[in-house]
């Protein structure tokens, strides 16, 4: 090859290399990002919504508001950068996806049939601020995209408590308590023995929900039962509604949403309770460190309260405590189910398959 030819070929290589450099530094990145963020969404038959799921102190769900049209099938892609999180959307949709580990990505496809406001929430303990890990999903009616149905109107049960001037957040200690956990199994026989002597109001769900077990016990003592017999009878009346399937559903709700703080056995000693005393929670949520999660196994604090009060606490949260509101997550029916389940902690279930 002559020197001239060598020079020409080296010039050509140089230009080729320069063009390659421009391709690498400018054209490739522009084309790639243009495709991913403009062309690909435009061509896709299903919209993908990217959701970063980080612990609340690292930003929580991003974005924190997601808008979707009712009836629109969307793909949600969760990226988990830090610690394991669980994903569920409520209330009342039954959407609950299993845990996703750090560094992983999970895709789900979902269609929201009804317009409304829903909550995407984490349902495994991920940080001291776990309960803050929520974002809103606004599902709009495609006919009226600007109008979002308001489905968080005042809860009639809470409104009624307030109207009756019941202090939801005050302690509701029982004036008297049984010596041990009352047994619904024994209570069932006692109630059967009472027959028509059982005061009618005690069998009414409305009465039961608005009265405490202590009040029921006082009523039963009047009809001639011993102290212990009356407590057993109350245990039966309070747990009679909960069948096996309901207990399982409620147990699962409890395990995912409550046990982290209140403990699996309801003793108030979940992993969340240990950080309760620490400063971090105080800093983040503004609660008082001395406010421990309620122990449902404590007879004195439990048996003086009513199902309505516990219902209100679950849905609205505990004022001045770290108890978050679950109203945006549970339907009223789910909340009642959960409250009925809570009674299985201070009261001994009659069902052999249940907690003894």
């Amino acid at each position, binding site marked *: 090859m002559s020197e001239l030819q060598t020079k020409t070929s080296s010039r050509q290589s140089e230009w080729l*290399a320069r063009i390659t450099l421009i391709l690498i530094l400018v054209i490739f990145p522009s084309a790639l990002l243009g495709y991913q963020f403009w062309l690909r969404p435009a061509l896709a038959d299903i919209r993908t919504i990217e959701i970063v799921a980080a612990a609340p102190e690292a930003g929580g769900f991003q974005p924190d508001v997601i808008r979707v049209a009712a009836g629109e099938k969307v793909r949600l*892609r969760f990226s988990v950068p830090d610690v394991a999180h669980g994903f569920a959307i409520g209330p009342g949709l039954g959407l609950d996806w299993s845990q996703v580990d750090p560094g*992983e990505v999970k895709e789900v496809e979902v269609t929201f049939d009804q317009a409304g406001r829903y909550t995407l929430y984490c349902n495994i303990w991920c940080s001291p601020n776990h309960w803050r890990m929520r974002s809103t999903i606004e599902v709009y009616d495609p006919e009226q995209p600007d109008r979002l149905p308001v489905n968080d109107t005042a809860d009639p049960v809470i409104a009624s408590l307030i109207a009756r001037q019941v202090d939801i957040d005050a302690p509701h200690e029982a004036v008297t308590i049984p010596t041990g956990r009352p047994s619904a199994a024994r209570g069932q026989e006692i109630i059967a023995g009472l027959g028509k002597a059982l005061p009618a109001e005690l069998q009414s769900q409305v009465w039961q929900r608005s009265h405490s077990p202590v009040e029921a016990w006082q009523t039963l003592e009047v009809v001639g039962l011993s102290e212990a017999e009356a407590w057993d009878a109350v245990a039966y009346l309070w747990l009679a509604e909960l069948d096996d399937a309901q207990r399982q559903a409620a147990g699962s709700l409890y395990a995912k949403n409550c046990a982290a703080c209140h403990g699996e056995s309801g003793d108030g000693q979940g992993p969340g309770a240990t950080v309760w005393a620490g400063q971090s929670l105080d800093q983040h949520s503004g609660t008082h460190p001395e406010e421990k999660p309620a122990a449902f196994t404590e007879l004195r604090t439990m048996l003086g309260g009513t199902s309505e009060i516990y219902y209100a606490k679950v849905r609205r949260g505990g004022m001045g405590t770290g108890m978050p509101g679950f109203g945006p997550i549970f339907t009223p029916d789910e909340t009642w189910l959960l409250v009925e389940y809570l009674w299985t902690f201070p009261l001994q279930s009659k069902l052999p398959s249940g907690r003894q």
Partner: protein
Amino acid sequence: MSHRFELTRSLWLKALLKSRLFQPILMLLTLFFFVVAIIAGFFGTPAGSHNFSIIFVWIVWWALLIIVLVPFFGRLWCTICPIPSLGEWFQRRGIIRRIPGPLRSLHWRWPRRLRNIWLQNFGFLAVAVFSPIVLTSPSVSAWVLVGMIGLAIGLSVLYENRIFCRYVCPVGGFIGLYSLVSSLELRVKDLQVCKDHLTKDCVTGTECSYGCPWLIFPGNLERNTYCGLCMECLKACPKDNIALNLRPFGADLLVTKGRSLDEAYKALIMLACALLYSAILLGPWGWLKEWANMASLPHWAAYATGFLTANLLVLPGLFWLATLAAQKATSLQTPVKRLFTDYAYSLVPMGLTGWIAFSFSFVFVNGSYAISLLSDPFGWGWDLLGTRTVPWTPFWPGVMTTLQVMLLLLGLVFSIVITYRIGLQHAKTHTQAWRSTLPVASFLTMVTLAFLWLYMGG
């Protein structure tokens, strides 16, 4: 030269290495992957296991570097590294061709005080102390890559040649040191030819080559530490006096010329880091990992203080005691500082095997992510090769610990042999050498036991 096999005897290999296309083409290729990593870091999923910037940089590249390139090929990574590429091409005004004229830069002089690897030592520690975050967060990773390339460009504007690679790059520091072990070297064939050659084309450059960008006169090369294997000298030498050789592992560790305290500290820092990372990431202390991950600023500050103290004071302190004992055990008058520096080179094989063993623990466990990432490098849900849904599967979980233990023991034996041979350089008799070896060998054994305890699930 004994025990050497000259690879450049192969004409086609020599022609390849002499071609001006060789290095730039590889650099363009790695630059492309570098750009992919940066885009993935900034725009890809923040889930590290599904992001190219984490898996391909910190697992695939790292594994390639520490398990293959450094032990076998020395600084070969520096030949193809994309980080200095833009700065170098800016200085040269071209990519392939040898453009006549001086390099384009402000021609500042690099301070004499910084003509060592202390900056690289501290730079490495600065990155290391953040590494649990850098290694898991794609965006932080991308910032580190952008920062490195920005710094390399900046330094190329101010100073001629590869000042960044030679004195600043935190990766280059340990690649250089561990290349002392590697089985590949670039050397002159006949030193006398260089001495007699007046024009020194390898330093000044020729019509078809640049002067050594690493500021080295190949005639003086006795160790791999600062030769970036760019092959400019091979292109320049009119006497055909440059050779690429295969040689026994660890040959440079016994070269006394060039040993210095900054390199000795590098050896200690690398060993300490391998040990500390093993403890943080594989040890039974969850709290330590949380602190390293910046659970809170005070926790991280405590971790960082401990990490730096262990690196700069504790391990060097213990090693200093070992060398002091070595001096006392013999009646030699060599100053302890000299012994400290010289014996530190015996830590190099153990440090390297320690790093390889540590790397096995995440390469074997998490390497399979790379398969799905080939199809979806940005975690955007692509499926280029149909491998996106290939599940995460640890490779050979039963074999990993055995391999790690074997490697660590190999490193220990290698290091003790080197210690003894360094001892011989100071001692008059074999007995004296053995006596001075004992304290250092005890130190090496203790470190190995700590590694073994961590890897065998202590």
